[in-house]
């Protein structure tokens, strides 16, 4: 599985944003929120722009950070695939990409959050993609 890389503002010409995952409480474990603040300079950027990552399929995803009055920022996070405007998504690619993004997040958080535990959890719940990739 190739790695996930953060990229700067990609061209959005001819693309649409397809919502593929939403999290209403990114700070449930605060180290997740802190990872996004650190990785995307949210202390400086705030709501001004999304983060972008390129995933193993080559597809680019935008990470849209959501604020909520009375809660530390970001409170929520929406993940959008940037796909050719009139073309359907490959669900298999998105599934594999999202798992890679989750792996990248857990790696970036570190400490007690370990990729081995993410993989073990995925295997326990028999994620189809883990059997596809052996």
């Amino acid at each position, binding site marked *: 599985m190739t790695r996930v890389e953060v990229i700067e503002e990609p061209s959005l010409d001819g693309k649409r944003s397809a919502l593929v995952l*939403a999290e209403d*409480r990114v700070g449930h474990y605060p180290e*997740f929120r802190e990872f996004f603040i650190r990785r995307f300079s949210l202390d400086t950027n705030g709501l001004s722009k999304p983060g972008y990552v390129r995933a193993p399929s080559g597809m680019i995803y935008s990470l849209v950070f959501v604020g909520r009055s009375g809660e530390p920022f970001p409170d929520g996070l929406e*993940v959008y695939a940037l796909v050719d405007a009139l073309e359907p998504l490959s669900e298999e690619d998105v599934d594999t990409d*999202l798992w890679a993004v989750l792996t990248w*997040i857990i790696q970036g958080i570190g400490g007690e959050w370990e990729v081995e*535990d993410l993989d073990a959890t995925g295997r326990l*719940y028999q994620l189809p993609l883990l059997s596809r990739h052996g």
Partner: protein
Amino acid sequence: MKVDPAGSHLQSGHFVHEEWPYEPRFKRVNSWRMHYIDEGAGDPVVLLHGNPAWGFLYRKFVKPLTAAGRRVIVPDMIGFGLSEKPVREQAHSLDGHIANLTSLLRQLDVRNATMVCHDWGGPTGLGFALSNTRRVRALVIMSTWAWPLPPAEFHKRIFPWRMMHAPLVGPYLLGKHNALAGRGMYLSVVDRKKFEEEAQSVYESVLPDPGSRLLTWTWPRWIPLDETARGYQRFEWLEHELKKSRFPTLLVWGREDEVFDHTTFATRFKELLPHAEGPELVTGRHFLQEDSGAEIAEKINNFLDRIDGRQP
């Protein structure tokens, strides 16, 4: 009976299954549409499920309890079963779910009720009982808890519990892949082959889309892990009020329950409620109703007969 593996139990919005022939009923609670069944006549027995189940978990209970002259009410929590399923995490709170149940049971003017509490049906059902003491006469408690700390050791570990519902991992694993209603329940019964043949697709099929599964990763986030947790004070209140209560109580636990193990959790309830009967152990992991439904229903009937003086 083997169920349709395609899980097509929902037909035109109605749930069709030979083991669940009950008329669907609905009430508005706190602006949400709550599904419940209401069968039989007599003093009510309210059967409360938790995560990620719904009333179907009690399919082996309804007939023996109604046949014994009891009214049986089985609500589906808002977010589960055939009830409305909010799509925002902020729609859910422990207090909100207690208030949902309170709304339903007050609308039905339930009195002299026996509250049968399992998993999150524990904190919600006990929350109702302890704030509506005049409407409740007895408790049956199974595989749950009602105090702030600590939860089971299992709930503190990253693998698999905290990882499973972690930010973004929860919506992916439990949302997109329905891991808790499928594999999660499968792992939490004793007779897995029977569960797979009879029930697994039912639990999976009533949560057909990722958005409909939100409560499966939201409820785990409401289990307090430290004193700063949401709900911590409500659990303190539950423990405090439960300790003062004198409801006749029956504890029933699964012998093989390794999450809410009986030596820790049933014992703790016994300390809070020294007058409680049990724990009566049956074959079962966390979802003990799947392995021992008819046996537990009989235990409830016998317990209530004893309260009513119909049995020594």
